[in-house]
């Protein structure tokens, strides 16, 4: 049987099993083992568990559970709400300051926690009710939080970036640094839209009021004194110090990414114990057990995705698909656009971890041949996968928003999110035109 036919069967079999609703990890493992049985030497089956263990026992990959622990510790405390309230207090006078405060709080929290749903949940649970109480439309409020939360998979320590560094064999430190510029760009775009839409909704509310209608909460002014503003800072500073400390440990050469993850996890637990008095075993247990649950689910998917990729590579499916892409002689931008479109479509159904590990062997060789920088591509691909987090059917952040604010109709949430998806597309275009936004910082700090 030709490689092409085997490849098509492999792809169809995967789709079929996955769409039954079987857990992704087991579906990937099953299809890999089935193809090993039929198309590989029988001895390959004897090493299947060794393969999975060896692929998983990478200290870089195993930093993922520890980064999740750090995120869970911060996410399950009041740190998110405190961070948000402090930023809000200081941005009170800026038009749309509340929306911007939410975007900034999401970005800072994402950089501490490294998780998109955790960011949405922590900032959204305080931010969405506050924005709605101040007159923001429900969809707008939901859109700000859902989009702000996506920064969790872009800003370091991003799990998606860790996986990309393993799949593409590029420096994790450089990838983390490369995400900073685009992260700031997205924060700027989201904040600008928040300010613009605030003014639009404010004008509408004012018009309604002047015509004798109901006075919207938009039109109420709340002014905090300087003393009230400074009183907000002490609770936030330790977490910002943790964020800076972890970055210094990583980039100052004091600790490897996995050591940084371990250190960050312990420090985050110590901070919530000191500041929020979360130190009893009964208080700590839910944080660590939820970390274990999420880590187990993710690492099973990662392990089986790696087995899946190994089989794909052994059967020359990935090489043939990559060669086919190269022989199409697409212009480099058409190639990039096709690959990103492919990633977007996969993002409808698959979490970023599977997308990276399953597609890397196919898409990276043609991109290398076309002269694309993998550090830059890692950032672009992550932003594209961020979109998958906020659009149905997978749209994990939409689910989190629904759990934080169940009374906002799904339709409003989706409409509120669309402008932010468009802004992400704009960010991708800007990164294509000005790749230095991603590459300058890592090249300057760590050399080319």
């Amino acid at each position, binding site marked *: 049987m030709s490689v092409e036919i085997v490849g098509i069967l492999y792809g169809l079999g995967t789709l079929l*099993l*996955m*769409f*039954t*609703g*079987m*857990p*992704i*990890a*087991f*579906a990937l*493992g*099953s299809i890999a*083992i089935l193809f090993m049985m039929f198309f590989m030497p029988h001895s390959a*089956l*004897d090493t*299947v*568990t*060794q393969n*999975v*263990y060896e692929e*998983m*026992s990478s*200290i870089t990959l*195993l930093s993922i*559970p*520890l980064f999740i*622990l750090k995120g869970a510790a911060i996410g399950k405390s009041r740190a998110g709400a405190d961070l948000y309230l402090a930023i809000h207090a200081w941005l009170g006078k800026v038009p749309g300051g509340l929306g911007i405060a939410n975007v900034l709080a999401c970005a800072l929290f994402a950089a501490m926690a490294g998780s998109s749903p955790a960011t949405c949940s922590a900032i959204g649970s305080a931010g969405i009710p506050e924005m709605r109480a101040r007159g923001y439309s429900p969809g707008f409020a939901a859109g700000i939080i859902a989009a702000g939360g996506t920064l969790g998979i872009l800003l370091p320590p991003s799990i998606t970036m860790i996986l990309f560094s393993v799949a593409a064999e590029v420096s994790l430190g450089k990838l983390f640094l490369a995400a900073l510029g685009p992260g700031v760009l997205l924060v700027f775009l989201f904040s600008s839209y928040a300010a613009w839409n605030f003014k639009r909704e404010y004008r509408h509310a004012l018009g309604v009021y002047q015509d004798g209608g109901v006075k919207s909460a938009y039109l109420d002014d709340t002014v905090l004194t300087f003393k009230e503003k400074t009183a907000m800072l002490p609770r936030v500073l330790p977490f910002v110090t943790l964020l800076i400390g972890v970055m210094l*440990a990583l980039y100052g050469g*004091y600790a490897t990414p*996995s*050591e940084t*993850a*371990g*250190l960050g*996890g*312990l420090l985050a*637990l110590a901070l919530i114990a000191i500041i929020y008095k979360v130190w009893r075993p009964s208080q700590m*247990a839910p944080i*660590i*057990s939820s970390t*274990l*649950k999420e*880590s*187990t*689910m993710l*690492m*099973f*998917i990662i392990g089986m995705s790696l087995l899946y990729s190994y089989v794909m590579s052994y059967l020359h499916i990935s090489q043939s698909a990559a060669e086919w892409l190269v022989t199409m002689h697409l212009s480099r931008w058409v190639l990039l656009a096709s690959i990103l479109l492919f990633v977007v479509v996969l993002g409808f*159904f*698959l*979490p970023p971890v599977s997308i990276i590990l399953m597609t890397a062997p196919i898409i990276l060789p043609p991109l290398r041949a076309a002269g694309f920088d993998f550090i830059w591509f890692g950032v672009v691909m992550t932003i594209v996968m961020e979109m998958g987090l906020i659009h*149905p*059917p*997978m*749209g*994990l952040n*939409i*689910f989190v928003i629904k759990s934080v604010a169940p009374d906002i109709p*799904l339709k409003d949430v989706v409409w509120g999110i669309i402008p932010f998806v468009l802004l992400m597309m704009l960010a991708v275009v800007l990164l294509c035109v000005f790749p230095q936004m991603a590459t300058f910082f890592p090249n300057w700090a760590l050399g080319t």
Partner: protein
Amino acid sequence: MSHGVDLPGAVAKRLGFNSEAPRWFLPRLMNVALTRINRLVVTLSMLAMLGSCAVLTSGVVMRYFFKTPTDWQDEISMFLLVGSIFMCGAAVQAQRGHLGIEAIAGYLSPAANRWRIWVCDILSLLFCGFFSWKSWTLLYEAWSEGMTTSSTWAPPLWIPYGLMALGITLLTLQLLIQVLNPPLHKTLS
């Protein structure tokens, strides 16, 4: 219609999976035993995770404050984390926490969805059963041949392989209990 924005296992739980203890004696006994084992395993895994953080942190402290680099910290933390992850597979499955694509769930009737989930459980059981068998043969090989890692510290590989075999076996048993106790009867009543 779920629109796919469901947490792992939400559809199954909504349809009555995991809501009742198994009806037959042996699966019910297994369920009780496995629930206790899972609770113990999760507690030990929580400690292992904290231990792994402590080991990695101590590596940094030893290197910078005592000028004593360690060659064991990465492998110890790896064993602790890999062990925790495989051992917790069953506890996560007990809560149906392994992520799946539920896109078609919204298009099927509750009865069809119950059958779909049951078939998925059977397929998952077959996969995990096979993986479990191969894990035990790998453990036997590592034990009998005295296999170690390739580092200078060279700890024996039967430790992580043993945890993997045990964890996947627990996961297989968990799936077996779920396969033996589908709420399909609810559609008949």
